[in-house]
């Protein structure tokens, strides 16, 4: 199987419109989560991109009025990634789009309801950049963003494509917010992953994109070395009490990468800060003998950005490798799960060569991807 590399990345979030700007803010422990009075029936914490700043940034690319917010953040992110990438769009370049809810807000805003169909979103992005292949759209709940990296890797390894641009995005809408509220899953404070004080998620919005290729020209590069995406087969909305699907996903990725748990330097967990999710992850990481590996959840910085989260958090992990820095798990104080975990409490300089990214979502889905630094 061919080696697959991940490079050129862009995060669009309240913390900034480039990955570098985002990492700088994270290093200062700044969060995008603030109190908002206008997104729900009562004030609510969320991580939301400022519309005025977004439209100013988008103005150089197109008319901000004719694109939805999600389209704007995805296009802005991809535009920067495409311009950085070592390859250009060819008929062997895939466009992979990951989103949980897409333009669902078009069911009840000024855009036509047809805009809510995901293939319409796909066509907007395809046409904007002139992609030559049909977009591959993944809508697999909250693992969509990280699963998109696994899908790109598999398609390129099997030589259906030479390379891919992958973009993930979701916005904060009344639709998703009210749904999580109906589950009583929204925290009344900024979310606190893995803490004994945690009371639920904060919701967030972001777009993230990367370039993935079977070629590498950089002196130092990041290789995707293993992945797995297994189902709990247990419950459609509740996380498995044994962490089954997540454990199997991690195992599948480790076997493919031919790695042992002690070879992993860092885990970028899902850590939504709901009682059941974080507990499930602790169980799965312990079953996989990963409880000693430094771990964080980045939800304290971004909230839960749904289909973007796995991709966004992978990019931050890539900067952990580049900068040899483990970033603190914001919102954490005292461990609030029944099994041991090594939560990163302070941002620290240390060698980071190999990391594991995981995510889990409704429908019992889980994904694990392993990434590794290589030197030419």
């Amino acid at each position: 199987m061919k080696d697959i590399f991940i490079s050129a990345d862009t995060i669009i979030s309240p913390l900034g419109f480039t990955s570098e700007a985002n990492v700088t803010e994270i290093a200062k422990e700044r969060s995008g989560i603030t109190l908002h009075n206008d997104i729900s029936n009562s004030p609510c914490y969320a991580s939301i991109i400022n519309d005025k700043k977004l439209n100013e940034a988008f103005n150089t690319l197109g008319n901000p009025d004719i694109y939805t917010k999600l389209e704007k953040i995805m296009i802005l992110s991809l535009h920067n990634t495409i311009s950085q990438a070592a390859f250009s769009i060819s008929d062997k370049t895939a466009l992979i789009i990951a989103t949980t809810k897409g333009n669902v807000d078009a069911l009840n805003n000024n855009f036509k309801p047809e805009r809510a169909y995901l293939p319409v979103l796909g066509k907007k992005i395809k046409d904007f950049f002139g992609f030559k292949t049909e977009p591959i759209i993944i809508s697999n709940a909250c693992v969509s963003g990280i699963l998109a990296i696994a899908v790109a890797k598999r398609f390129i390894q099997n030589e259906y494509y030479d390379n891919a641009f992958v973009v993930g995005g979701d916005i904060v809408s009344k639709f998703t917010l009210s749904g999580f509220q109906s589950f009583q899953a929204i925290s009344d404070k900024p979310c606190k992953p893995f803490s004994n004080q945690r009371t639920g998620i904060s919701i967030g919005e972001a777009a993230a994109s990367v370039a993935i290729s079977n070629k590498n020209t950089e002196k130092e590069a990041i290789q995707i070395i293993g992945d797995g995406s297994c189902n709990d087969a247990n419950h459609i909305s509740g996380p498995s009490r044994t962490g089954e699907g997540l454990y199997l996903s991690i195992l599948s990725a480790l076997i493919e990468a031919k790695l042992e748990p002690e070879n992993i330097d860092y885990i970028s967990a899902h850590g939504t800060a709901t009682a059941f999710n974080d507990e499930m992850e602790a169980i799965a990481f312990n079953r996989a003998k990963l409880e000693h590996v430094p771990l964080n959840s980045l939800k304290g910085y971004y909230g839960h950005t749904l289909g973007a989260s796995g991709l966004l958090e992978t990019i931050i992990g890539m900067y952990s490798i580049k900068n040899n820095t483990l970033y603190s798990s914001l919102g954490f104080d005292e461990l609030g799960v029944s099994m041991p975990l090594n939560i990163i409490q302070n941002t620290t300089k240390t060698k980071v060569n190999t990391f594991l990214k995981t995510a889990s979502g409704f429908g019992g889905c889980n994904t694990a991807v392993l990434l590794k630094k290589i030197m030419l």
Partner: protein
Amino acid sequence: MKKNLNIIAYCRIKNHSISVNGKEVITKDSQLTFPEFAKLVYKEKDIAYPKFFKMDNLSKLGFLASEFLFENAELNQTTKENIGIVLSNKSASLDTDRKYQETINDKDNYFPSPAVFVYTLANIMIGEISIRHQIKGENVFFVSDKFNETLLEQYASSLIQNEKSSHVLCGWVDVDNDKYDAFMYLVAEEESENYSKEIIKKIYKEN
């Protein structure tokens, strides 16, 4: 080494009828709505699985197609546990999204329900099938403008070639207002190759 793949069973549900491997097994009155049709099929098949009635129309459709498919394929539980599931459609969960949206449109008539919200994700159907058959394999849900045999063929092949799955349940399951269409098939490694995007498309068109 490249493995030879084959389609070992397929099922189609559309226009009030169900066919398995090209043979019609059930056909009902064309005046029935999809939920009415689904309920009749459930009763006729004597499926004892009360969770079925909690499902949205998309999950019901996918669930029924998988019931007919697995009944025909006769796989043992160890094989079943490792099956990859690769489903796709055009409308994702929009059929249920619209119903959920109605519950939050009006501040004076605001009644969002977690039981409806959870089905506003198309991959819940994969979860339902996984729970029913205890399948813990690879999952993905793709969305495309129309039935995309190339995407399904390539991804199922990738899962088998990369040794992530020995069998892959593939398909197209779409529900959009009154329209519904399901086509599901099982791909596995076999001695002789009889699997290509052309074969998939031919079966889809002829059934």
